[in-house]
């Protein structure tokens, strides 16, 4: 295929992996091929269920018990590893020559042994050295992965490390044997954005320093642009396109890759509909005919439904599996390209007015809100004296890392907690404290919430019909049974689900469909205000755009006001009018969306902005990564105040800091 002098260090050919799942055969990987060269970083991108994780696990013989490689070869330095039969053969490769870093650092570390011992053990096992030598080596490695005070931390247990530090320890254990290949399986998915940026940086540095080859598995295109040299896009168990990071991001040829990139909210223009991939990923229990992506591709050709496309070479480093590259399709492909180009030009030409705050009414006022929880005898303040307003018709985003208290604010507004301090006013009326039944009913109808996890937010034992009409039943919002059914059918159609689905159970739906059921459940109450608690962060990239478009459409049609809770600043930029940044229970900055991105003032906001992985290899890694240390504030003498520094731009700081911020703005 390739006329290159270099030979690949790892070469997988037509690997097929099948799982026996409750008596049914699931083909997770359907003939995937890949080549990894020495010293390069290859990212495998795909949605959940695309088989990316399973595919790489087969390189080290770590498939689950019910899974089996049923075809293909994996050559590691010209040795076919699929011929291995015993665990002993695998152990010679696994950990020593090919190491793996998993998503959740806590599951890869033993909680009852010190981290130093765990790494030293690996070294002793593989290199048969003395304990003292191994210890010395371990401390070296811990230093290398950026753990300060390595000598003391050697004797500490995993629970004494933060999430990011733990992942560094796992990486240290992985590189302890100087592997030739390091496979990172979503190593930063469980981490906060700022920590993620540091880990990516670390992996990049280590790769260069140790001259390893790295396979980086992720679903996040932003991370890919930051970390990879080569990218393989996986869909329904096949590598559909592979090329250098610039080729994939700038000249994608496979319709799936194109659609994936176009549906990224980071690259969208606010106020316009985001390009969205229709439908849901295919069911791998069924046999797939032709191109797996064809049913979701509005531009699919007849041939796509009949024959599986072969691999077409675009450039020496770039190939894709799509019929669009066939000579017969030349004319059609050119047509599509021309049309897409026109569309994007049209979209760019149509500017959208920003939200007009000059005569906006306040819908919700939050004054000095604090929420505390009892924790181990003491009190833990999850939300600490927070005040802000939400205007009718706007989308206010609340952005923060895990544990910042953003969800707690959302739930406090929904009156989930019995006791909160401070006041919340809705439409001028106080809604905290005891309310009459009539008032509660009104509030339940006017305020609703969307949830994060589509798997956990639906009652598994109830039919969709019951789930959606739960609120209708509670307040008898229908005259007769027929009216209720009609309401359910209408709302299902509105969120893009067939009303026939009403008699099914939630487990029969995919994540995106379940999220839409959850949205329908809230919308059927016809609320004015919705708390959207990270409604897209648990969804696959190809589904996100659907939900974002749905939320935007509903907002326009129903005149909704959103409080949008998120951890990802880049996604929020596409949908919000104003953004509030929250950390450790305190809102530190609140401003207009564009203003915040143009003039971030608070050091935490700056750190957050610098850490966003931007899905463009030309932009990625250009910004310097900033870190935020709360101890930089000197609030002992001069306490912080919540100040409107310029109209609409609020910030938390003491007088000295505020003067500094004013200087920064040139005031």
């Amino acid at each position: 295929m390739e006329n290159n002098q270099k030979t690949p260090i790892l070469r997988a050919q037509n690997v097929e992996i099948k799982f026996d799942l409750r008596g049914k055969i699931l083909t997770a990987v359907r003939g995937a091929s890949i080549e990894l060269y020495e010293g390069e970083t290859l990212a495998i991108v795909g949605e959940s269920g695309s088989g990316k994780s399973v595919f790489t696990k087969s390189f080290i013989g770590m498939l689950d018990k019910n899974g089996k490689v049923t075809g293909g070869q994996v050559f590691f330095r010209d040795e076919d590893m699929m011929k291995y039969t015993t665990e002993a053969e695998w152990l010679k490769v696994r950990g020593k020559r090919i190491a793996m870093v998993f998503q959740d650092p806590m599951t890869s570390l033993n909680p009852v042994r010190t981290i130093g011992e765990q790494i030293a053990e690996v070294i002793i096992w593989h290199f048969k050295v003395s304990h003292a030598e191994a210890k010395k080596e371990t401390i070296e490695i811990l230093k290398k992965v950026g753990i300060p005070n390595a000598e003391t931390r050697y004797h500490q247990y995993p629970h004494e490390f933060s999430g990011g530090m733990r992942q560094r320890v796992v990486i240290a254990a992985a590189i302890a044997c100087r592997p030739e290949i390091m496979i990172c399986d979503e190593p930063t998915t469980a981490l906060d954005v700022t920590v993620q940026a540091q880990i990516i940086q670390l992996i990049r540095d280590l790769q260069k320093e140790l001259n390893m080859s790295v396979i980086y598995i992720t679903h996040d295109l932003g991370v890919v642009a930051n970390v990879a040299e080569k990218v393989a896009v996986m869909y329904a168990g096949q590598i559909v396109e592979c090329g250098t990071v610039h080729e994939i991001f700038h000249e994608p040829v496979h319709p799936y890759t194109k659609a994936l990139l176009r549906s990224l909210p980071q690259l969208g223009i606010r106020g316009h509909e985001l390009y969205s991939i229709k439908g849901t990923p295919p069911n791998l229990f069924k046999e797939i005919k032709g191109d797996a992506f064809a049913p979701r591709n509005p531009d699919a050709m007849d041939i796509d439904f009949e024959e599986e496309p072969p691999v077409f070479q675009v450039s020496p480093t770039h190939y894709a599996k799509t019929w669009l590259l066939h000579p017969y399709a030349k004319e059609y492909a050119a047509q599509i390209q021309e049309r897409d180009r026109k569309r994007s030009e049209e979209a760019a030409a149509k500017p959208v007015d920003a939200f007009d705050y000059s005569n906006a009414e306040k819908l919700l006022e939050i004054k000095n809100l604090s929420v505390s929880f009892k924790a181990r005898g003491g009190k833990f303040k999850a939300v600490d004296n927070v005040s802000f307003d939400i205007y009718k018709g706007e989308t206010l985003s609340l952005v923060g890392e895990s544990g910042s208290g953003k969800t707690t604010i959302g739930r406090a507004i929904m009156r989930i907690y019995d006791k909160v301090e401070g006041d919340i006013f809705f439409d001028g009326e106080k809604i905290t404290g005891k309310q009459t039944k009539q008032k509660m009913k009104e509030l339940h109808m006017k305020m609703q919430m969307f949830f994060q996890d589509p798997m956990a937010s639906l009652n598994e034992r109830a039919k969709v019909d019951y789930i959606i009409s739960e609120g209708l039943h509670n307040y008898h919002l229908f005259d007769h049974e027929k009216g209720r059914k009609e309401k359910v059918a209408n709302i299902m159609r509105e969120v893009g689900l067939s009303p026939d689905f009403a008699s099914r159970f939630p487990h029969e739906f995919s994540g995106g469909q379940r999220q839409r059921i959850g949205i329908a459940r809230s919308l059927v109450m016809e609320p004015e205000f919705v708390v959207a608690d990270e409604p897209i962060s648990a969804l696959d990239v190809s589904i996100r755009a659907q939900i974002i478009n749905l939320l935007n459409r509903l907002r326009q049609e129903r005149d909704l006001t959103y409080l949008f809770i998120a951890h990802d600043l880049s996604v929020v930029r596409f949908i919000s009018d104003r953004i509030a940044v929250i950390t450790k229970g305190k809102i530190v900055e609140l401003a207009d969306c564009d203003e915040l991105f143009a003039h971030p003032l608070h050091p935490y906001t700056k750190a957050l902005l610098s850490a966003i992985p931007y899905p463009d290899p030309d932009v990625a890694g250009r910004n310097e990564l900033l870190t935020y240390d709360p101890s930089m504030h000197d609030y002992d003498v001069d306490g912080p105040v919540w100040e409107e520094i310029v109209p609409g731009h609020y910030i938390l700081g003491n007088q000295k800091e505020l003067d500094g911020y004013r200087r920064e703005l040139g005031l």
Partner: protein
Amino acid sequence: MSQQNEKKITLDPVKFRAAVFDHMRSEDTGYSNYSYWKSTFRTFFKSKAVCALVILICGIILMSFLYPVFSDVDPTKRSLIFMDWNQKPSETHWFGTDQLGRDIWARAWYGARNSFLLGFCIALSDVGIGMIVGALWGYNRKMDPVMIELYNVMTNIPSTVYLVLLAYIMNTSFLTLFISMASRGWIVEARFFRNRILSIRDSEYNIASKCLGTSMWKIVTKNIIPHIISLIIMEAALCIPYSIGSEVFLGFVGVGMPVDAITLGNIVNQGRASFTQHPYQMLLPAAILCIITIAFYIIGNKFADASDPRNHV
């Protein structure tokens, strides 16, 4: 543009034009074939031994309740003829007769029926009361100190002392036995259910119901109980052999049912008196008892395993 592994099939250029986009087709996934109950029962009945035990238990229960229909042997009919006493197992008396000439086979089935009745009643009250109290307990933090004390007191008194005392104070009867056993078991179940409910009380789907204004009663009955129903079944299944065993024990120490009542406890107890001469009088009814209790335990535990979604592979 080079082409790799060119197919042998001839490609029709006409096929290379836009196909009709079918919205429904793109949504068609049938994402999961997973259904909780289906998977639970498939896992449960996967083992042949479990199937056999379930059939066996069903057979024994049916037999014990239908025995009076099949047979007209009176289990209380004593015989004054010396020859009828202490007979060895034979064609007419499968399990032999006791020292009063009563047919042990018939007595065993009547006894099993009473034991089952007792077991079912206890299981119903323990699990029923336990579930209601557990639900209240799980939702009401204020009950914690009182309930935990009560739990500690009740579970730390050895159950035998407690059972013997209660049975001693009241007259021996089915009701006494039921009260003495049921007054204690519920709190263990209540605590078990409380812990389970606590773990799912704050999951997102319950918060969603709260946001929709669903009443607590409805959340418990519609959201929580359907999620722990398999645990309820399992607990009930394990309660039955425990109460049958307790009854036998109480009969054994002489504070169980009245002597003339036919229960497995009384039969075993009476057989014990003549165990040295006629061991079969105790061993055969005891064998039926063992089969019932062991089968129930195995079924209960296997069901517990099967109802755990982690085992649904």
